[in-house]
């Protein structure tokens, strides 16, 4: 299986696909920059029109960058989890990492803390939940993916109970903040905050990409991977920490946005094959572009209708992602 994968992936193919996805991501960002509820031209913004400048560079661009970073974090972390646990269902949500991160962020909201501390709390929540789930799932020193997923599901339920508990004791205003966190919400943020997020996400992304060839070996089973010289325990620890860092920062910034972490890596696997050296970076880039486009739709689709409202971005990600996933899956089944 490994030989087959290697024969498919040449460095030229790796470069072409990733360069293509990067170009697509840049095109999506540029497209989203032109799309909005208000008329504002880039030229006017750059030639000193204050209104156009504020619309594009204070409101639109930070939001787009936020969507790109969150999409990249969720999709590449999802791809890594799927590899690590050898389970198609693994994603930050189902594993309970998002739930743990959300609990951390919600507790910080309840304590009246600001964004940086919320992120740290979310990261802490993600790491603690990852460790807890991993230790329980790994109880007999043999990692059973099914046990792990089941633990994740239960852990999630526990986290959500605590979140709802916090939600019932905070003030009305904080309850709204928590509701937005649970719905998934992308709002413009300051460039300083975005820089912190970028540091977490791009750092984690680089770590996952660096580990990606070892993930291929892990796909053959722990024992086989170990026999080929992979320090399995260390690899797991590194990937879990990197992924938790990304997911924690993403949840603190935008709350729980569903579907990206599960569906994007699957869609990319169907399009580019299962080699993680390609799959991990490709998922990250595609996830970023997907969330940028989904958020552009969420903020503009209903703005000029009688509803005059923005949609939660999770509505778009699931409404577009689910059918796309089905179509690709069906096509793959037909060719087999």
């Amino acid at each position, binding site marked *: 299986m490994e030989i087959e994968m290697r024969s498919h992936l040449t460095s030229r193919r790796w470069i072409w696909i990733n360069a293509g996805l990067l170009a697509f991501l840049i095109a999506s960002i540029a497209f989203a920059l032109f799309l909005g509820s208000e008329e*504002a031209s880039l030229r006017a913004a750059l030639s000193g029109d204050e209104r156009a400048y504020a619309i594009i560079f*204070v409101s639109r661009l930070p939001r787009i960058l936020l969507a790109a970073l969150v999409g990249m974090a969720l999709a590449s972390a999802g791809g890594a989890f799927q590899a690590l646990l050898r389970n198609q269902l693994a994603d930050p949500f189902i594993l309970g990492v998002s739930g743990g991160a959300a609990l951390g962020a919600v507790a910080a909201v309840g304590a009246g803390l600001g964004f940086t501390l919320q992120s740290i709390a979310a990261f802490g929540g993600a790491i603690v939940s990852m460790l807890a789930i991993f230790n329980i799932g790994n109880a007999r020193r043999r990692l059973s993916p099914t046990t792990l997923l089941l633990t994740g599901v239960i852990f999630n339920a526990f986290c959500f109970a605590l979140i709802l508990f916090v939600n019932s004791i905070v003030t009305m205003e904080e309850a709204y*903040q928590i509701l*937005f966190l649970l719905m998934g919400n992308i709002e413009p943020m300051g460039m300083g905050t975005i820089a912190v997020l970028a540091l977490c996400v791009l750092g984690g992304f680089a770590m996952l990409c660096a580990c990606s060839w070892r993930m291929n070996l892990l796909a053959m089973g722990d024992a086989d991977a170990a026999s080929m010289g992979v320090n399995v325990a260390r690899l797991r620890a590194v990937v879990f920490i990197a992924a938790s860092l990304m997911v924690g920062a993403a949840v603190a910034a935008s709350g729980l946005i569903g579907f990206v972490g599960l569906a994007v890596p699957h869609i990319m696997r169907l399009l580019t094959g299962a080699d993680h050296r390609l799959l991990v970076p490709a998922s990250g880039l595609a996830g970023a572009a997907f969330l940028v486009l989904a958020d552009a739709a969420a*903020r503009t689709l209903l*703005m000029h209708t009688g509803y005059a409202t*923005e949609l939660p971005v999770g509505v778009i990600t699931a409404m577009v992602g689910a059918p796309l996933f089905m179509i690709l899956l069906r096509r793959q089944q037909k060719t087999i």
Partner: protein
Amino acid sequence: MSTIMKSFRLATITLLIAFSLPVWAEAPRRIVSLKPSITDTVYALGLGERLVGVTKYCDAPDGAKKPEIAADYTRPYTERIIGLRPDIVIGSEENSSRRSIDALRRAGLSVEIFPFTTLGETLDSIEKISAVLGAPERGKKLRGEIEGRLDALKKRYGDKKPANAVVVWGLKPTILAGPGTFMDDAIAYIGLTNAARGTSVRYPKIGLEQLIAFDPDIIVDLSMDIKPGSAQERPWSNVDSIKAVREGRVIAMDPGMFRAGPRMPNALEKLAARIYGN
């Protein structure tokens, strides 16, 4: 000598005019409101034609031109607001999302935030809003009018036999107006005591059991899903051990009337008329 004095006086007057001009010119011409009661206040101050953006839930008086929708209940649409080029954005501590407010400020807009939690805060905020809009005397007058009408209500209904009431803001779960809220303050003017005053939070979510324990004489039902003509099931329906239910003193009214703002006296007059008859 006198020429020097004259020119000095002239210079002083010129300077005074020069310094007061920007203040006068700065009175905001384009206003965005992020809360229905702020919108009501701006209209009541007679400055409604300056509103360029309001929330989805704001309404304009009959005949007035409707401004653009620029926010929902808690979330301002930053891009649209910037696009409206407002001179000022007025929000509330209760409704306005912090992150979006920060984004508006980063965009160079002037954003003013006022509290509306209690009736006292609401009256202060009305006055402060009129000041930032460059019409402080109108604000004082409006506040005086509201307070005058509230005092008249107190005179008329203050010596009625005191009754316990609960104000229901929401169903599933049942949410009441608790202590330290503007409804808790407001119903006192028509001789009602808030039966939920002893709870520890502003908007307690309660169960039927607690409602039975409060045993209110009157239930003021402001829960949002009132559809005229439809007899909707309420948790207290048929619970005769609650005095208000037993005596048929459940009064359903439109929550939009009871905003923390200039509409309050009007709403209270209507509520009092429903309770005591005319």
